[in-house]
């Protein structure tokens, strides 16, 4: 349902539903901590982020209409067929080797935490770096580009496009001379 919605907010709502569902699956697999995290982080934080963006960009019915235009069968049939193939193959792979049934056991958060800060300590730190970089990067992209945009706006949008085009044509002529030679 998520992928077929035209309206972004609808899609996000269905996404939240899917997150809840998967958290239930986690719970049934004996991973309560992960199930909780799923709800908190995905359904809480990430969805909220999306919603913020949707609000900031003012995506509403306009976008929905646009999406309806874009989402023609011609567009999605080919990928869908490919993906279907993939799905079939993966299922075949899954069931090709039959294993003994497993018993579900609860893995406690405590055990999880121990291993997280024991053997995976370096990975945790790296994740920290990644998040840090994500934050800094997001902030930087959000801020810096805007300044650039301002400058271009001051100089006039056309100017920028012109410089770009000239650079491109120059590159093309270089290539052509190289070919010619």
């Amino acid at each position, binding site marked *: 349902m998520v992928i077929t919605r035209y309206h972004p907010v609808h899609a996000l709502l269905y996404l939240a539903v899917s997150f809840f569902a998967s958290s239930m699956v986690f719970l049934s697999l004996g991973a309560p901590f992960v199930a909780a995290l799923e709800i908190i982080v995905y359904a809480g934080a990430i969805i909220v982020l999306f919603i913020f963006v949707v609000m900031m960009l003012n995506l509403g019915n306009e976008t929905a209409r646009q999406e309806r235009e874009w989402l023609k069968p011609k567009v999605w049939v080919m990928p869908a067929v490919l993906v279907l193939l993939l799905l079939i193959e993966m299922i075949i792979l899954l069931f090709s080797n039959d294993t003994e049934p497993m018993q579900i056991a609860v893995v406690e958060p405590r055990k999880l935490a121990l291993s997280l800060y024991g053997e995976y300590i370096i990975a945790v730190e790296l994740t920290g770096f990644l998040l840090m970089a994500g934050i800094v990067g997001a902030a930087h992209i959000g801020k810096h580009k805007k300044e650039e945009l301002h400058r271009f706006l001051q100089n006039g949008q056309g100017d920028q496009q012109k410089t770009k085009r000239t650079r491109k044509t120059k590159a093309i002529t270089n290539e052509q001379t*190289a070919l010619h*030679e």
Partner: protein
Amino acid sequence: MILVWMISILLIGGVACWLVAQRDPLACKWTALVAVVAAFLLPVVWYLRHTPVVDGNAWLIDYQVNWIPAFGIGFHLAMDGLSFVMILLTGLLGILAVLCSWREIREKTGFYFFNLLWTLAGIGGVFVAMDLFLFYFFWEVMLVPMYFLIAIWGDFNRRNAAYKFFIFTQTGGLLMLLSILALYFIHGQQNNGNYTFDYFALLNTTLGNNATARWIMLGFLIAFVIKLPMVPLHSWLPDAHSEAPTAGSLILAGLLLKTGAYGIIRFVLPLFPDASAGIAGWAMLLGVVGIIYGALLAYAQTDLKRLVAYTSVSHMGFVLLGVFSFNQMALQGVVMQLLTHGVSTGALFALAGMLKERLHTRDINQMGGLWTAMPHMGALAMVFVMASLGLPMLGNFIAEFLILLGAFEVNPVLSVIASLGLVLSALYSLRIMQKVFFGQIQTITDPPADVSAREWIIMASLTIAIVFLGLFPQPVFNLVSGVVEQVVRL
């Protein structure tokens, strides 16, 4: 120590040129000139003061310090007769190259002279480096600035020419690097982990004539014959020569090509005597093919510099033929050919540059009758055209004569075919004179000026050099006799 000074003066001079040029381009030219002159007066003065007795295989100078001892890399410079002769040639042509570019270069003067001087430093280093790692280092030092010289100050097609030059020579260079490393490890394994890049130590590596030796030898050889160039690998040369600025062509033809031949004499033959004897027949054959093929192509060209470039291919065929004759006369002839070809072809390129400066074209169909306007230049051109076709009295004749004579003792058939090159060389050389200087003068509004004072200096020194080599070649033969005998003995 004197060699270190020589190279470092050039390197520092190059940087100084770059810095000075931002204030005053003229001062930069003088800086370059002073640096080149100083750098090459050093060995000459040293030689005059010491005048060592030349005999056997005396190493005139030997300077060695550790550089990266962990890998057995030393900073080892040494000079024997062969190196000294090549250094002299480098000096002469280096000074002339600076003079040649005095008026030709108007843009980015500082960077230009920086590149020029660094190329010269690289060439000088190649001729004296006795550590294979150092040799490779200098090999690259001479390559990269040359690339810039062609790519920035060249003619219309310069980018293409520069790429071609770089790709060809770099391919060779990398093959050589592989071979150097292979040799390094083989030597290290043979001598219980005593890994070293030193030339003299590596000379003792026993390789024999097995497949390994042949492959390693081929790696060196390909690098050198690309530089030389040998015929199937020559195609970078006409482009690079014709597109490079005058000084660039001068250095390319006069010096860079010589590094290839020098490398063969210095490294390939002594390091792999058996393996190189194994392919001598093929190498000689390719040399002869080069002589004939280059001459045929030279005749067909209409671009003056391109024509001269193909004559280089032809003349370098003689070098290959001579080197692989393993004959004292042929090898002496090869060294002579290196010198005289450097002088004569350098002069022809300088002439082509002067003509281009005046007429703004290199197309010989658009020239003609220039003797009327420039009798002096015509006479000078005549001298070097005659040198290029091997007229006795001028140096090239002695070189080619000795090479052919030496090769004749080894392989008469090839030598006879190579002699046909002399007839073909007459064909293309006379074509230059006929198209450029003879005939009706083309309708040029104002006749171009004759040779200027600066150009007189350039051409006069080259003329004196070539006549001297033609009539009194013995000093050169004495200087290199040690090296040659050593190679022949192998």
